[in-house]
């Protein structure tokens, strides 16, 4: 394999159990978002836009749909000679097979892949977040600081801080002095985004130590980062400014979708960095003669004949005459029949809301109709 400067490894094995019905058949990174995307499109597109040509995607939980979606990587321009996307599921070795026991273990089990790619730096990403970012600037900072580790951080409100891994840094240099995992009394409001750049020999040394430790949870946040800090490694923060959202729960996923509908959305999908995704070959969507559409985002192949307001609508969705769909996210190929009412809901792929049926949640209690389900009128 040709030598790479920076190899990206995307942790995409997460179950996303808090997304409940939406992750019954797919891993969290394959969950649809924003009318046409899946969550993993964001880190993959970021890699493509940052000039990273070699990306390992570590899969584990329900990988079929994710593998199918990634294909050759051509959708992200990552089907490259001597590079591109490498799908890395757990595999059997001489001493038996293991699931990935933690985020660090997933990388540890693929050290031979990293050796093969022979990068100077390894960029670790998670497949759980919605944001656009050019990693090449972070890599520059890493080199300038002559760092062992650079951690992407994001300023959160002080109230939210206890939910995150918090980095306490030296204001002037950005050097990390302390790490607090979900602290009750945070000393800083800089949250770790789960984005790490490691210098490769440094990472390898720590992974090999941690991999054989019995009492480790094999997690970057829990084990490796605190250990590195204790050893006095050169660890720096890299502050990211912009939209960054963890969509780990139904509410946050719904909210992130709704964020797109504002007149000037806080997260602009039309921004400088294009987000790529796999393409389904469907025509422009059709808005019928009796339809009304306001504050919505609608993808190709949809047929809208009813009333739609404050909705994100994916490809191939049908909304029948007289149906009222509001404050909702309708995933690919779902059907809302004539006269049905949908409010504060997420309707998963291929679900059918029958004529005259009613699906209503409320703010803070979003109603989820699972994949393929049929909701009949009362």
């Amino acid at each position, binding site marked *: 394999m040709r030598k790479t400067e920076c190899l990206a490894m995307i942790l995409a094995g997460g179950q996303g159990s808090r997304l409940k019905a939406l992750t019954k058949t797919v891993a969290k990174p394959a969950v649809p978002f*924003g*009318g*046409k995307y899946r969550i993993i499109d964001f880190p993959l597109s970021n890699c493509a836009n940052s000039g990273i040509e070699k990306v390992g995607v570590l899969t584990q939980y329900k990988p079929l749909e994710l593998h199918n979606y990634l294909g050759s990587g*051509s959708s992200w321009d990552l089907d490259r000679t001597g590079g591109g996307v490498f799908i890395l599921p757990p595999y059997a070795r001489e001493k038996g097979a293991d699931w990935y026991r933690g985020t660090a273990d997933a990388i540890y089990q693929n050290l031979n892949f990293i050796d093969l790619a022979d990068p100077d730096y390894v960029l670790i990403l998670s497949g759980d977040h919605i944001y656009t970012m050019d990693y090449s600037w972070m890599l520059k900072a890493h080199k300038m600081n002559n760092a062992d580790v650079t951690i992407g951080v994001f300023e959160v409100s002080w109230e939210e801080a206890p939910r995150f891994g918090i980095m306490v840094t030296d204001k002037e240099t950005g050097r990390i002095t302390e790490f607090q995992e979900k602290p009750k009394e945070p000393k800083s409001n800089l949250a770790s985004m789960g984005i790490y750049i490691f210098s490769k020999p440094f990472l390898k040394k720590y992974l090999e130590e941690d991999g054989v430790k019995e009492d480790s949870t094999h997690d970057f946040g829990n084990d490796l980062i605190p250990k590195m800090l204790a050893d006095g490694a050169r660890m720096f923060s890299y502050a990211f400014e912009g939209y960054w959202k963890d969509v780990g729960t139904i509410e946050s996923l719904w909210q992130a979708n709704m964020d*797109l*509908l504002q*007149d000037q959305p806080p997260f602009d*999908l*039309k921004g400088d960095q*294009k*987000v*790529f*995704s796999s*393409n389904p*070959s*469907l*025509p*422009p*969507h*059709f*808005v*019928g*003669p*009796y*339809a*009304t*559409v*306001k*504050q*919505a*985002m*609608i*993808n*190709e*192949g949809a*047929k809208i004949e009813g009333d739609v307001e404050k909705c*994100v*609508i994916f490809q191939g969705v049908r909304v029948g005459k007289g149906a009222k769909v509001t404050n909702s996210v309708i995933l690919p190929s779902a059907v809302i029949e004539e006269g049905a009412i949908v409010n504060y809901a997420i309707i998963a792929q291929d679900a059918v809301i029958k004529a005259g049926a009613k699906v209503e949640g409320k703010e803070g209690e979003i109603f989820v109709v699972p994949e393929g389900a049929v909701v009949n009128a009362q």
Partner: protein
Amino acid sequence: MKQVVGIINLQEGNSLIRELAATRAVEALPFAGRYRLVDFAISNMVNSGISAVGLLLPDFSRAVLDHIRSGKDWDLARRRDGLTYLPAALPDNDSRKGDLKDIYANLDFAELSGRQYVLLTNASYIYNIDFEKVLDFHKKSGADITMVYSKAQVDREGKSVVIQTSTNGIVTDLAEVPAIKEGQKDVMGAYLMPVPTFAYLVRSTYERGGQDFLLDALIRHAEEFKISAYKHEGYVAHINSTMEYYEANRDCLKPEVWEELFMNNDRPIFTKVKDEVPVQYKETASVKNSLIANGCEIRGTVENSILFRGVIVGKGAVVKDSILMQRCDVQEGARVENVICDKEVIITKNRWLKGAENYPYIVKKKARI
């Protein structure tokens, strides 16, 4: 369909649609919000299982080449077979007009393909067909040549080829007419025949001074062959004039046409992928009976119109009965009615622009009004 090699003739050269096709081949005209005409011809072949497709390039080929590139978006970037570009014949001293010289110059492609049949189609027609059925029909009919036709739904201006058939579907007369009448059998520019028959037609006609495949090769030799006609039952449009272009686009606003052409799971129409954002409708948007392509941002009113990728309609702007191609910008308070805007036209604030109902006003590429 492994026995068939496809050739798509992009050498139509049409003067009736000059306004829009001055800088591009007719076949590269944008259509229905995200396609170009040629997408239908290529997708029909690919969906029918033809894996070797030759594109007979038009004189203005840049737009076509830029659109199709490796053919990957049509699944034609293959290790074996796939897409082959067939360049137009080099002009020489006794340069002739017509497409026959170009077909003649590329005869090798069909003859060396190792296939039994050649399917020649024309990319100025819009339809969705399974050519496998045409091949079955051809084999059963025992004919030398099979052509695909449809029954004309209305009277139409513009050159067309009409046929008369006997009760068993054998063509008894084949003629080019200046206009077509309702009910006549309209040939759709698709011809299926064995490779040797094709080679004989092209070679013998060209060597005797022929210029046009249809007129000189097919029509003049019609008597020598048994020709059968396969009837296509679905929607067909022939883009022969600006009016037909406008009408065919508007036909896509009929749900049944939209479903038939584009929503067939087995036969999708492929096109170049652009990775645009889904359409963003803002609070003041009002949209009825329209096709809106991804990348559009709408704050105004849109009715009975087709918006291509990346069109912006400002607050208070009105778009009615119009076709706006890629990246047009209709600014606040502007109004367009019965208008076709080519790519990247800007209608500045509060300007009004109206064409006639039966003849749309055409705005040239990158104009600022």
